[in-house]
């Protein structure tokens, strides 16, 4: 379905600005477990949908914010291409706008980059009631401030995204999953060693029992890495299940936390169950421990934690200086505070 409803969206924002109404921006509502609940008039972006342009030889796709992520991935798949950052859908209705606003990246993140790394341009409706264009459809563009990448992970707090241009890449010719039995300590040590070598690793996770590796590249590199690393072949479904939180680990009743850590911090002793992702740079934790306890433990190793449960404790707190500049930016770009007020932090 292809519909350009940007005019209606602009009108809705203009009206909200006139009346001082808060807006709650929503695509597929698949990331509602992150951040804080917002009260405000619903802006449903799903009807502003459709791929605007896609030329596989340019490696660029432009689509409206409400375009379903599955439609984008299907279109790319037909041309043998992909979104390298492997964005988690976390729901059947996930949209492009939500993918960028949430800024979540999948298992390939440490090797291929995050959502923001693939954002080339955006159109957005601003807190001054204007529909503007930043960045574009070219790979290199350093004119002006990089407002487009700033939108990635901003949870709609700085403006209403209407269109996004993304860099896309060809799918690797070969893809092979491996399962190597070893404990987490050993796995992290091996990953640190392999990370310094030109191996075609594109995902690395440890589930408590074994290291799961994904090899991606040409036939030759994947074959030789497979011979060198050994292990048994892994069901390729694993990576999709990890990305979409369908593994048995995620079904445990405790709160789910996403921990983002320096890759060097080694095995962490934390209350609850852990699953290592991103070669150690991201850990999933199922824990009933209080947020403050976890945050204190993480601060010691230079990491931060996000709860996949809506509320005040969901987003990791900012230090006072950083918060000050967040507030200054919010005031400048959304002076009336109409876009998703409080979605990330109470006073933002």
């Amino acid at each position: 379905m292809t519909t350009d409803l940007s005019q209606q969206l602009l009108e809705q924002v203009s009206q909200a600005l006139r009346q001082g109404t808060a807006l709650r921006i929503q695509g597929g509502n698949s990331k509602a477990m992150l951040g804080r609940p917002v009260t405000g008039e619903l802006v449903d972006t799903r009807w502003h949908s459709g791929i605007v342009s896609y030329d596989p030889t340019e490696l660029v796709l432009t689509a409206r914010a409400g375009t379903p992520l599955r439609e984008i991935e299907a279109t790319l798949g037909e041309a043998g291409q992909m979104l390298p950052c492997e964005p988690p859908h976390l729901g059947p209705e996930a949209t492009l706008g939500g993918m960028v606003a949430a800024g979540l990246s999948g298992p390939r993140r440490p090797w291929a980059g995050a959502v923001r790394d693939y954002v080339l341009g955006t159109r957005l409706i601003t807190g001054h009631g204007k529909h503007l264009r930043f960045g574009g459809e070219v790979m290199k563009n350093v004119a002006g401030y990089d407002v487009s990448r700033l939108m990635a992970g901003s949870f709609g707090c700085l403006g209403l995204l209407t269109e996004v241009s993304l860099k896309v890449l060809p799918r690797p010719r070969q893809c092979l999953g491996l399962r190597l039995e070893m404990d987490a300590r050993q796995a992290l040590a091996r990953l640190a060693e392999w990370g310094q070598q030109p191996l075609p690793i594109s995902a690395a996770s440890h589930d408590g029992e074994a290291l799961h590796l994904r090899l991606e590249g040409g036939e030759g590199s994947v074959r030789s890495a497979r011979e060198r690393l050994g292990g048994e072949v892994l069901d390729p479904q694993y990576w999709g299940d990890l990305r979409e939180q369908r593994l048995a680990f995620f079904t445990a009743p405790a709160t789910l936390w996403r921990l983002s850590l320096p890759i060097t911090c080694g095995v962490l002793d934390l209350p609850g169950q852990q699953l290592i992702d991103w070669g150690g740079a991201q850990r999933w934790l199922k824990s009933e421990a209080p947020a403050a306890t976890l945050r204190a433990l993480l601060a010691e190793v230079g990491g931060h934690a996000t709860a996949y449960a809506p509320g005040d404790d969901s987003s990791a707190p900012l230090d006072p200086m950083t918060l000050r500049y967040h507030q200054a930016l919010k005031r400048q770009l959304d002076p009336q505070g109409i876009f998703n007020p409080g979605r990330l932090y109470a006073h933002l």
Partner: protein
Amino acid sequence: MNILYDERVDGPLPSVDKPALLAALREALPDLDILHRSEDLKPYECDGLSAYRTLPLLVALPERLEQVQALLRLCHQRGVPVVARGAGTGLSGGALPLSQGILLVMARFNRILEVNPQGRFARVQPGVRNLAISQAAAPYGLYYAPDPSSQIACSIGGNVAENAGGVHCLKYGLTVHNLLKVDILTVEGECLTLGSDALDSPGFDLLALFTGSEGLLGIVTEVTVKLLPRPQVARVLLASFASVEDAGRAVADIIAAGIIPAGLEMMDNLAIRAAEAFIHAGYPVDAAAILLCELDGVEADVQDDCARVDAVLRQAGAREVRLACDEAERVRFWAGRKNAFPAVGRISPDYYCMDGTIPRRELPRVLAGISQLSETYGLRVANVFHAGDGNMHPLILFDANLPGELERAEALGGRILELCVAVGGSITGEHGVGREKINQMCAQFNSDEITLFHAVKAAFDPRGLLNPGKNIPTLQRCAEFGALHVHHGQLPFPDLERF
């Protein structure tokens, strides 16, 4: 329109009492090196864009963070503009001084603080040279990927400020893709950390916003970059074409074949001949265009990809395809391209390097447009092109000693950039806006977009003391620049066709 700071359209600058400021700085920072005599200031009057020069009010050469902090606080109190400078290799005048401002030279912060092979990162001071990072990482088989052609000299702080690129961007990204963390000092002299030692940090992505902000949002004091394992092998293919259209099509075909080369460079005939005469790289001087395609990675994959690319190139109509037979030949093939700028410098007294980007499919149209503009303005243009990522570097040949030639070169350059914008591209891919492309910003962005950029600036530096006049034009400047275009009678070349 003059490119130097013009208070009439760029906004009033505070008038600064130089002796009083110097005395205050000396009192507050007795051990800070400050240059103030005009003969000492002279070497700092320009950066890599040497056609434009302004003597700074003072030059400060701090060595310690506390000095920078105290200097910024003092300038903030007294309302003195501050222009940051790294190695001064920038090509867009981003470090062009202000006669009423302090030039803050960060070059003495040149220590590599940490190379961590397990964590694959390096923590360095802002004055460290780009290449020095890769050299320090080399013993571990690692390197820092972005490689601007000035990498021997340019500093990482400047790379962050400009979001510098290089010839390997399509595969390895720009500076913004290769950073973990940047520590800055705000205009008020407060420390702020952007990014973290982890792969992301809570809240807005201020690191992405800051990268490429050209010294307008803060001063870089420390940079943590990602390091990558050095690829096992790199091979390069040289293909010659009878037309630039064929070469352009070959680029699209390589991508369509699912191959992402480490580097994919195109040169047109004038650039080929200049480079060949200078370097003797073995380029076919009768070709309309050549493509250099570098493939890197694991030996087996590179071999396969070389065979694939070879077939694609021949299919696309290449007259000849040569695979560099050994490392020496590979280096020679690259030497021609990497020395294209000085090579052009040998066949013309002066040249002016442009930096537009375009969607690759527009290449034939843009090259035809450039050739037409070149004829109209009576100046030769050599084209060097990062074909993989659509970044063009047209080199305009001129002689600054001939009256009017510099102005004509500037006007031609401006038109080339506007042509890039018209086909959906950008006025700058990697050199930055600085002062050089301040007018063309008005062609790429409308007044509401420019206004939003000013709002971003106001969040960090409401009084506009950091690098005023760079990167983002005032609306007054755009109004004046726009007027030049609307009223064709005022154009220096009224008969020129618009694209």
